[in-house]
């Protein structure tokens, strides 16, 4: 299996994704610079990492979709290749039209970094055999409030494309809402693409993949992706 992490100017969780894939999960992984027109041959998984691509000065992810590398990322998706957008990567996927809806300013208007609980609500290459499982993953974003029109939301629900939903803790802390940003339908992550091969999510699974960092729930997504790639 071969993975690449796209480096846009302003990407800053590119290392986190590379490190987790390469050093924790053992996948051959390399960076691909945004000005590169083509992905390396044999790429199974493309990661759009977290960060502030192009400074996020216009709208989050709005400029990255025009990056030279993105045309080949689209071809990769059409071929059925895996595409994972984390945080700013999720924002880029919605701006690029690879996933529906939009991620807007958190309801409380602040950047927020903390652990949340999300429930796996859909099957797909990144969540094989995980449906119903509650994972503890960190968030770190100012624009993670998922919004879409009613028809889109109904379509996502009826097609079971809502991959992750924020859920309350067993002993809820009244000071911290389960849904950290006001996302509609408590949506934390979505599947898309021709074969559910595109996943976008606001939490950072690549920052919760080692005991030293406080947990290993995030590793499950990458292991699932490895299985999916090997099965192709």
């Amino acid at each position: 299996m071969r993975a690449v992490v796209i480096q846009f100017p302003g990407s800053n969780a590119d290392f986190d994704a590379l490190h987790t894939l390469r050093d924790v999960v053992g996948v051959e992984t390399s960076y691909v610079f945004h000005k590169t027109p083509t992905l390396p041959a044999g790429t199974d998984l493309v990661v759009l990492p977290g960060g502030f691509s192009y400074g996020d000065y216009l709208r989050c992810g709005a400029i990255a979709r025009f990056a030279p590398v993105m045309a080949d990322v689209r071809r990769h998706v059409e071929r059925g290749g895996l595409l994972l957008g984390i945080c700013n990567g999720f924002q880029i996927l919605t701006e690029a039209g690879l996933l529906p809806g939009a991620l807007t300013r958190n309801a409380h208007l602040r950047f927020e970094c903390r652990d949340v609980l999300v429930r796996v609500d859909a099957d797909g290459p990144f969540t094989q055999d995980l449906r119903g499982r509650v994972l503890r993953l960190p968030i770190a974003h100012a624009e993670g409030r998922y919004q879409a029109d009613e028809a889109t939301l109904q379509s996502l629900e009826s097609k079971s494309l809502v991959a992750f939903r924020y859920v309350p803790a067993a002993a809820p802390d009244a000071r911290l809402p389960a849904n950290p940003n006001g996302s509609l339908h408590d949506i934390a992550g979505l599947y898309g693409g021709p074969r559910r091969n595109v996943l976008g999510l606001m939490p950072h699974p690549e920052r919760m993949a080692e005991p030293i960092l406080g947990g290993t729930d995030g590793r499950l997504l990458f292991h699932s992706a490895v299985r999916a790639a090997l099965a192709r």
Partner: protein
Amino acid sequence: MSREPAVTPELAREHGLTDDEYATALKAIGRTPSFPELGVLSVMWSEHCSYKSSRVHLKRLPTKGPRVIHGPGENAGVVDIGDGWAVVFKMESHNHPSFIEPYQGAGTGVGGILRDVFTMGARPVAVMDSLRFGEPSHPRTPGLLRGVVAGIAGYGNAFGVPTVGGEVQFDAAYNGNILVNAFALGLCRSDRLFLGQAKGVGNPILYVGARTGRDGIHGATMASAEFEEGEEAERPTVQVGDPFMEKLLLEGCLEIFAAGVLEGIQDMGAAGLTSSTVEMASRAGNGVELWLDRLPRRAKHLTPYEILLSESQERMIMVARAGEEQRVLDICAKWDLDAQVVGRVTDTGRFVVRATPGYDPLSGAPWPDDPPVVVDLPVDLLTDAAPVYTRPCVDDPRLTDRYGVDATGLAFDPRSDLLELLSAPNVGSRAWIYRQYDHIVRDGTMVRPGAGDAAVVRLYCEDERGRREKLIAMSSDCNGRFCELDPRTGAAMAVAEACRNLACVGAAPIGLTDCLNFGNPQRPEIMAQFRDAIDGIADACKALGVPVVSGNVSLYNETTEQGGPRAVLPTPTIGAVGLFEKVSDVVGAGFRTAGDHVFVLGPHGDDRLGGSEWLTRRTGRVCGRPPSIDLAAEAALQSLLVRAAREGLLASAHDCAEGGLLVALAEACILGQSGAVVSLPAEYAVTPGGLFGEDPSRVVVSVTPYVLELFSRRVAEAGVPCAFLGRVGGASLSLEGVASWGLDEMREAHASALDEIVGR
């Protein structure tokens, strides 16, 4: 150019030069300086750049140690962490800009310290912020707190460095002058350090990064004067930050470093282009010649004066090896960075600036030939020959009057007082602040903010020699109240506490940085505080065997109020860095397992209340006789903690700080989500001093019963006093014979600490 004002003694005074200083300059130059020359002199001789009041005292700090690669004098300190790797760190203030415009002021403070670190060749991997605000009820406090925190978050989060720790204190002494001290730490190979040197006569000087504008002109001079009323008029002098540009600058610089084409590099910080090029020339014993016509700019019709004094952010000056300019320019193009050759290194020992009158490259016209000289000054006049003052010091004769406070009549109720202290802005949870910081980017944060006494970060050391992981801890501390009541002891306590926090998580200290925030040095009682604080830092460094490797001085932190000047509490903030031997050494602050035994390690002090949060709340002022510190006992305690951590003998360790012993116990319960049943040792009294006094050198530890015997042996060997308090367990903290507190009520009180300022 024709509109430039004539240089007169009057104008020199307006530039902050004293009559004596101006006379010295005239004599050295042998003529009346040009207007840009006056600007250059004024910034280079400002307190901020020249350290003219503090230099004579700073020499007393211990700066040497077996791990020190570069001490003070470079852009940041460098300490060896073994196996060919080093950490680079420094703390710096951005106080005045943050008071005028909190978001940009704090953000560019972070940006500046990040550049200081990566200009040495290191990738920044952690930031801490030490903040001081006025009293919670002051009308400006909420807006300043919100703005500063958002500014730090806005810059650090986008740049991609985790903000892993810090501290905040509220006191009326900061009502008119907040403190924003930013610490940054980077990782680099110890054989690939870059210094701010203009080496090699004839080598090209390159300008890289953001274009120059009019922002921040005279920032260094602003940082060298006290605030007057109407300081908002200074707003145009505050710099504006662009963290995206800084991120590109970082990646571009790291790639240029790796290409091996540079002789020297320095960021343009305070006093911008002038200070960076003059300092580089000075360190190399060379001269420089700059060609301003070629300088990338974003504002039209910039004059040489403005260009030389602009503090536009995200800019670097590089000296490349002759013939390698194109390599630098190519890498800059890859990262979409503006870059231009703007001068060369000379052997004249002079700072020479050329600019064509009236020429503006933004007009599209080509560079004119042979631009005339507008500045020609000796480099050493601006650096080594800058004024140095041994300012008079006089102890404040009224200080000890504040020691006599009768606490017997003050309301004291252990049960409600503990909940009050837990919910106090100076004691309780800082989650509202650190949740706004990305504290986990780069996959290294092992102990997050609020989770332990110090932040713990894994450093991922990777190059062609291989990959290895290192683990470090960092903490920033200072209690200005103790420094106010006894500057020497208070400063020693700041060093002791910062290092104690490292020891509590299991790390041994390897170096310190300091950020010394004081009032107007021309007042003898302020200078006495400064002198004593330096001695206190030196005392503690020697006792604990830790060198100071970098630092920053911020003076003139005071406001003019009715009734005279009001200085901030003397605040020598200490940033301490420690190293672990292995991952299993890391100790948390919260209680872990029911049945574990709870002890307080360290000497029982005098139960003194002076400067404590409890007494300050009860009396409304900083008063009382402050605690003393036994530095030998402190050293023994810290050695014991590190040894016990390395041997796996500690289930938890938590320092007694603001709020004293009882607050420390409550915090260990809250963090561990576990209660405890404890009773006070015989030598502790159920008095405000016994429960809430802030004597230093005390740590609450819990120990699993299986290793009690081994633990006791180590304690005895170390000769550290150790008192049994009780056992971990239950859903409440119960202090036998006094009171008990439910976990939920303690957690809620602790969590609500900033509510009175920022709302729920």
